[in-house]
């Protein structure tokens, strides 16, 4: 239920975001907007809808940045209005957009490691990929719902910690023989910095495990689809 005029504690990281005003005008019943505002139930379905949209957008091979940014910003507003007292989960970030997209891409490319070797040499010229702090490390074995979500999947933190199935160990090994000096440059965010925003179990998560499994299934399909070309499917798949 929406409480009346309840001010929530301002999170430090929210300070720069002016859209999340301290005065929770959404909750003030005397406010004209609230009079027409959707009830609390609709708000949570709006949240779900936005999460789905974000999800769908991120799944595109090349997300429409404008659409993504607008959905994320809207999601922030909805989030802020839904959980006034609880600590907000890590802020969804569009950063994830290009990097997750890239992760999805590189996960399918990973199977083609031979061609990747030569393509990697051109990576420094491709700015789009340069934003992902760990573009290659984020992939992992199929379907492993890693507890530690990749920092670059900030946006998907929203969906719960289990969605970070692209992550973890495993991929480093594939590229051992490749010159990784470019990754040591300052363009890439250091690993330690990246993990600072590993997700807590945020409150108010409206999405259940179903969504996470759907995400896993999709990613599995992507990986299995390409890997099927190279080797027989692993056990249990």
């Amino acid at each position: 239920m929406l409480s009346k005029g309840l001010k929530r504690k301002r999170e430090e990281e929210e300070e720069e975001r002016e859209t999340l005003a301290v005065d929770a005008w959404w909750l003030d019943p005397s406010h004209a907007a609230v009079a027409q505002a959707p009830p609390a139930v609709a708000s949570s379905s709006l949240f779900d809808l936005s999460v789905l949209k974000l999800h769908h957008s991120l799944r595109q091979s090349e997300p429409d940045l404008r659409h993504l940014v607008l959905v994320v910003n809207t999601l922030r507003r909805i989030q802020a209005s839904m959980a006034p007292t609880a600590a907000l989960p890590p802020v969804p970030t569009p950063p994830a957009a290009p990097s997750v997209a890239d992760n999805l891409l590189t996960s399918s490319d990973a199977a083609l490691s031979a061609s990747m070797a030569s393509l990697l040499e051109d990576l420094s010229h491709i700015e789009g990929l340069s934003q992902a702090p760990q573009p290659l490390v984020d992939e992992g074995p199929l379907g492993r719902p890693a507890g530690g979500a990749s920092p670059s999947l900030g946006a998907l933190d929203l969906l719960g910690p289990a969605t970070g199935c692209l992550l973890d160990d495993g991929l480093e090994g594939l590229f051992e023989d490749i010159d990784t000096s470019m990754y040591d440059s300052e363009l890439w965010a250091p690993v330690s910095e990246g993990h600072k925003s590993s997700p807590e179990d945020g409150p108010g998560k409206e999405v259940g495990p179903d969504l996470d499994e759907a995400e896993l299934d999709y990613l599995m399909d992507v990986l299995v689809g390409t890997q099927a070309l190279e080797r027989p499917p692993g056990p249990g798949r």
Partner: protein
Amino acid sequence: MVLQPGERHCGGWSHRRLGPWCSPTGSPAPLSCETGCGEGTWILVCRLLVPTQVSLLSMEEDIDTRKINNSFLRDHSYATEADIISTVEFNHTGELLATGDKGGRVVIFQREQESKNQVHRRGEYNVYSTFQSHEPEFDYLKSLEIEEKINKIRWLPQQNAAYFLLSTNDKTVKLWKVSERDKRPEGYNLKDEEGRLRDPATITTLRVPVLRPMDLMVEATPRRVFANAHTYHINSISVNSDYETYMSADDLRINLWNFEITNQSFNIVDIKPANMEELTEVITAAEFHPHHCNTFVYSSSKGTIRLCDMRASALCDRHTKFFEEPEDPSNRSFFSEIISSISDVKFSHSGRYIMTRDYLTVKVWDLNMENRPIETYQVHDYLRSKLCSLYENDCIFDKFECVWNGSDSVIMTGSYNNFFRMFDRNTKRDVTLEASRENSKPRAILKPRKVCVGGKRRKDEISVDSLDFSKKILHTAWHPSENIIAVAATNNLYIFQDKVN
């Protein structure tokens, strides 16, 4: 690709000539016209279609085009997604009208020459040239397909006999030269009439080849390709008033090009944050000032417009002026930001004003006043209570364009249900018209439409719930000096003109 003017080319567009003209009847529309063309009554000049299925029949030369027109063009199920028009633009004289579509094609129409015998044919446009501007590409590094859809076309002012235009998809801008050829050299020494090489031993005399007249041919050739400068999707291109440079804008950056140099461009705006996690705003449109070659504006997804002066610094990250209207607290909602996102920005011809289009309104700004627009026009305010549904079906993200008329007195923009709206800035009157097949009789007068927002619906009104949101008019164009407008509705191009008394 070469097309003879007037030729019914089946691989591209086919012009369906409408029947004999009927004399117009009806009362004048409320919109007043300032260019001396009479009352503001709009009539349909022609409707042009892109039926792809017709191309399959083009193999058989003897197919009667009229038969094709009548039997196939009526059925829209033949039109494919590639035929969807994605941009419309008149050239600087209005003689030519270019359209780009989702399939990467550009079709140029030329205005019918006025003749004493057929005055009523004035204003009609015929196919002049058709060519494939962009092809789908595959980015192997990112495993991405780059769409061939033409996002924008911009004409260069004419400086010689040829026409030049810029066309762009998401990643690459191309400069096309469209020229006519009506003479052909004949009498080569080394080649015979069929072009086969002659045996030099048989050549006993030499002659000078002469130019002989031939049937007019229109050729389009790509003169420059400006590639590999945009990581994100190009949304705008704008030719500078110096006619030497132009800019291309994507979601996060704006680049300045010289027409002669294709392998490098200057980055003049970069709003990409060091850390992409901080990204909250993207560039949505950009345009050069019509007269001051150092000035340009760009709009954002947060509803702001920045005016920049290239003389101030090489990288125009700091704006000279910042236009933003404070949010109306009574209209705040979760969707406030989305509906404030500007989808198009256009300088007036005078250069004194800019017009912006957001989801529900069109605003006119005076360059000298940054804190609020001088005029705001409601395009379809009845959608304000439907924002949640429109968010759900993604219609809220639709990007509508807006245009000025030649004298900057009237502005026009599209809406749903194939409606488009015109606002007269002087009389403050507005009109809603519809581009539909039902009203496609030749010289049919467009009847003003009205949306009923509640209560009793009158006979000719349409209720909000009956609106077809799949029929959206995103792209329109206005002739630079006359009251002739081009309206794109999916794969249809409608040309309307002001009734001439």
